[in-house]
Each structure stands twice: as structure tokens, then as C-alpha cells.
């Protein structure tokens, strides 16, 4: 291993370690800030999906929050809220949903997705999510199957994914309540 190769090793090692330290150092503050922001976002979306609720109590199993119970100002149970990951056509869709005690949907908000831009990505628009408030659990289906939700043209898979996500979350809450 003559001198020249040692130099090569030193250089690549040095560069890798410097890159790693820079990224590691940057990771800590950004992660903390991200946590703060995400928590804000969650509270905000809970408010959106369940407008008449005042505050929310997380229902935990172990340290993982399953869903939130929504209480109004005078502290009686008004409904539930949840975050749910559902596989869409391109990747996972994270959606926030709110229902009242009779399992009628009070609101839906798409938190994150990687659907095809221009097609599946339209699930985040109010024209689609706006259809959900006030829809009872049984007619939470696509209009072509007799439900109350019209799918987005050219993005049936993504639309169905959102609906299945809501159903899955509702069943989970039913099992727990």
C-alpha cells in the first residue's frame, strides 16, 4: 500500500466523515423543529375535520396513538378523529378524518400523498374532499356503486383508496369503543 493509495484512502474517508458529521449535526435541529411543526399540523387538521369539537384526547395503545376522542367545550364526547395511511396507486396516502358518534363523516383532509401529478394528486382538492362531510358510513362508497362520493376522472384507484382508508379507520375505532 504505497503512499499514494494511503492518500486516496485518507481523502475519501475524510470526505465521507465530514459529510456525515455535517448531515448529522443538521439533522438534530431540523428534526426537533419538524416535530414541533408536525404537532401543530396535527392539531390544526383535527380542528378542520371535526369543527364543532373543542379539544382532543389521544387514545393510546402502548405509546402509539390509535385515534383521538373529540370533546366539545362542555366536555361531552362529540366524535372521533384519526390519521390513517392507505396505499394509493403510486404510494401511500396519509389522510386525516373526523366522524361524529353516529359514524357520519365530519371532515376529511389529505395530509400527504405521492399520486400522479394532475390525476391522483387531485384528491387533495376541496372538490373531492368536500364531498365527505355529512356522509353516513353505509353510503361512504363511489357514486357508481351507489355511494355518495364521485371519483376523480382518471384516478379511480386514488379515490377508492381514500374511501377504504376511512372505512379501515372507522372499523378500528368501532373495535376499540
Amino acid at each position, binding site marked *: 500500500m504505497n503512499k499514494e493509495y494511503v492518500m486516496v484512502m485518507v481523502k475519501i474517508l475524510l470526505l465521507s466523515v465530514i459529510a*456525515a458529521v455535517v*448531515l448529522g449535526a443538521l439533522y438534530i435541529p431540523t*428534526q426537533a423543529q419538524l416535530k414541533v411543526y408536525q404537532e401543530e399540523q396535527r392539531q390544526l387538521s383535527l380542528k378542520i375535520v371535526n369543527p364543532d369539537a373543542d379539544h382532543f384526547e389521544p387514545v393510546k395503545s402502548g405509546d402509539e396513538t390509535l385515534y383521538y376522542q373529540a370533546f366539545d367545550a362542555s366536555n361531552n364526547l362529540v366524535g372521533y378523529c384519526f390519521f390513517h395511511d392507505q396505499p394509493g396507486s403510486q404510494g401511500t396516502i396519509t389522510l386525516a378524518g373526523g366522524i361524529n358518534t353516529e359514524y357520519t363523516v365530519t371532515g376529511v383532509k389529505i395530509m400527504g400523498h405521492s399520486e400522479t401529478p394532475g390525476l391522483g394528486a387531485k384528491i387533495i382538492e376541496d372538490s373531492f374532499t368536500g364531498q365527505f362531510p355529512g356522509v353516513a358510513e353505509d353510503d361512504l362508497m363511489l357514486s357508481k356503486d351507489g355511494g355518495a362520493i364521485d371519483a376523480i376522472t382518471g384516478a*379511480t384507484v386514488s379515490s377508492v383508496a381514500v374511501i377504504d382508508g376511512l372505512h379501515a379507520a372507522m372499523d378500528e375505532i368501532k373495535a376499540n369503543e
Partner: protein
Amino acid sequence: MEDSLFSIAVNGIFVQNFLLVQFLGLCSFVGVSKETKSAAGMSAAVLFVMIMASIASFLIYTYLLLPMGLTFLTTISFIIVIAFLVQLVEFIIRKYSPPLYRSLGIFLPLITTNCAILGVVILNARLDYGFIQSVFYGITAGLGYTMVMLLMAAIREKSNALKVPEAVEGLPHAFFITTLLSMAFVSYFQVIPT
């Protein structure tokens, strides 16, 4: 994720073809598909790097990054492995077939940033495929890439004899052929909703 190997194969080669549907790996695709010889050379290199990268990235992701909770390093560690593999391939090609090395030219280092390869490894991680699934996905995605590459090289060589207005000759011509190819592949996409 319990994707069966068959569905991964269909996904990798046809439905989610990296080149024509996911737009990944175009730089080398357009640049090198002028003639079948260099196209074959390039796809062989891409296939090799894809398979090795799938293996290496799976090991790093599951045994290093996940347990240590450093998932923010995924992209950088994957891409270093790919770059290392490409440097290795560059040595091998330069040693054993200099003409191919000359004809690939700038596109050889570009395999590193070849979106298809990084695409495969990141998808492997995101869909948290098992080891066999990851490697299989690497192979099928590579085959999908090779198939389209050779198809394109053959078409472009044949289309040289056509009388094409001068402005369209060369790259625009290649792009129009790709348009038709990708429409065919995208229609596959609608037929088999995954």
C-alpha cells in the same frame, strides 16, 4: 409488503416500466440508444449495477440505517454504493472493451445518477420489500430498462433510412418514437390496475 414475485416482475418490466412510465433513466436512454451495440453495453452495465445496488442497499437499510434510526441517511448511503459500483463497472469496461468505453463516454458516469437505479433502491426501501423481493425487483426493473433500450436502439437504427425533415433528424425523432412507446406502456398501466 407481500407483493408476489410475479406482480413485481410485471410491475418492473411493463406496467411501472422505469423508462416510459416513471420517467426514470432517460438521460442515458436517449443519449446512448443510437446504436444497439452501445445500447446493449449500457443496459448490461445498468442491469449489473441495479442488481448489486439492490443487494447492497437492502443490507445497509435493514441492518445499519433502520436499527440505528438514521433513516435520513438513506439517500446518501444508497447513492454512494451506486457510485462505487459504477466506478467499478467503469474500470471493468475500460479494461476489457475500450471501444465500448469510448462509445459510452460521458454516459458511463451518468449511470450513477441514473434515476432508474436510485429509483429501484428507494422504492425497495419505501415498500420495505424483503431481500428476495428487492433483488427480484432490481432484476426485473433492469430487464424492463434493457428491453426498452434495445427496442429503442433497433427502431432508431431502422429509422435512419427514413426520409425525415432535417430539423427532426436525430434526437427529436427519438423523442417522437419514445412518445409512441410510452403511450403503449401507459395503456398497459390502465389495463392492469395494481
